[in-house]
């Protein structure tokens, strides 16, 4: 990366501009647009992942191979992301049956996964009152 001899590191500037832009886009999508909730959530989560990528690749030199660290940084970040997915999605998947929102009466969403599997009557029977 001969870049580092230059006075102004373009990579950083581009990364910065992109992250500001993506943040604004996400804010607009969430607060200004009238997309459906599902779309907003998945959309802004994707934007967040892209931003994380910008930090990792443009600021953190995650693939700086001359560092003698080989694939380790990249590898650790990748597996960290996999674990993050397992922990967050796994917890939601497993714990969803514990939601006790009988006050807002919207417990069907929580059982989606199981219902998808043709388990309608049961899950509802099993967890009425949630």
């Amino acid at each position, binding site marked *: 990366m001969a870049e580092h001899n230059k006075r102004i590191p373009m990579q950083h500037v581009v990364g910065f501009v992109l992250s500001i832009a993506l943040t604004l886009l996400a804010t607009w999508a969430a607060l200004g647009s009238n997309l459906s909730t599902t779309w907003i959530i998945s959309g802004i989560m994707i934007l967040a992942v892209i931003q994380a990528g910008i930090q990792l690749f443009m600021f953190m030199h995650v693939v700086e191979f001359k560092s003698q660290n080989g694939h380790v940084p990249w590898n650790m970040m990748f597996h960290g992301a996999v674990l993050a997915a397992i922990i967050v999605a796994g917890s939601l998947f497993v714990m969803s*049956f*514990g939601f*006790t*929102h*009988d*006050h807002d009466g919207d417990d069907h969403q929580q059982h989606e996964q199981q219902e998808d599997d043709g*388990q309608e009557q*049961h899950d509802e*029977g*099993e*967890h*009425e*009152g*949630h």
Partner: protein
Amino acid sequence: MKSMKQFFKRGLILLPLSLVLFLSGCSQMAVFDPKGPVAQTQSDLIIYSIILMLFIVVVVFVPFGYFVYKYRDTNPNRKESDYEPHMHGNTMIEIVWTIIPFVIVVALSIPTVNTLFELEKPPESTDSATEDTEEEPLVVHATAADWKWFFSYPEEDIETVNYLHIPTDRPIEFKLSSADSMAAMWIPQLGGQKYNMAGMENTLYLQADEEGVYDGRNSNFNGEGFTKHTFEVYAESEEDYDAWVEETQNEAPELSQEEYDELLEPGLTTEAEYSSTHLEWVDHGTNDGRDYAVNRHYDLYGELMHLYSDHEAEDFMDEENEEDHESH
């Protein structure tokens, strides 16, 4: 060497030993003495898995014993060809011993998944006499509290403490919840357990095919009184059951909220029955009922009972229970 031989023997002895124990024990051990369709399914599944596991055990133990015996350095019959220090592997055989276990796992998974889904439904009638009547399951709310059990029959409007009556040949739909700590309702001879948790409700289907008295208990550790957190299940014919219901409705006192709150206090209690249920003012299985007991008795949970195994508490309970049972 002496130790070598012992080694070899132990491997061989364990096998028949386990078989003997299994065969002689099958009729007595609670899990292998099922008294209803749910426990029956589980017992069948377990026996099926034990057979496969014994196969694996043999497949490992036999070559193990043989190699350890044959290739020991001190074996007087060693041949030159018995030693190949540079053998590094064999792809063919490695594939074989990956695939066979995989196949066994598949063979275990299929019935496991099937029964899992089956257990979420009321058991299908096994008795040909009742086949066409297709009875609705009897709903019983089983609520655990430190350290007693409440069984509420909403339809019948009765409630019992630390024991319950059920009709045979009819599925029971247990609505499990807890007033405070997490418990698990387990009646080994009728089927496996599920957790009782405050603020939520689990459903457990069980059914008895044979009349009798079965031991039930909380199997999930929940503090000092855990060991005594038990109850008894009286499975009886439809008629006897109906008679019991009627008798309880007519003769048992009503359950007042004050009395219920007192019962909820952490500690042991005796058996009791009432002609109304606590569901009228609280269902611990709902979000609103989750902190009912904690709010009332917050400061009492930490108090020690100094429970010894032959403490008065137990004697007292035994006596009371005997009196009680004359009426059942």
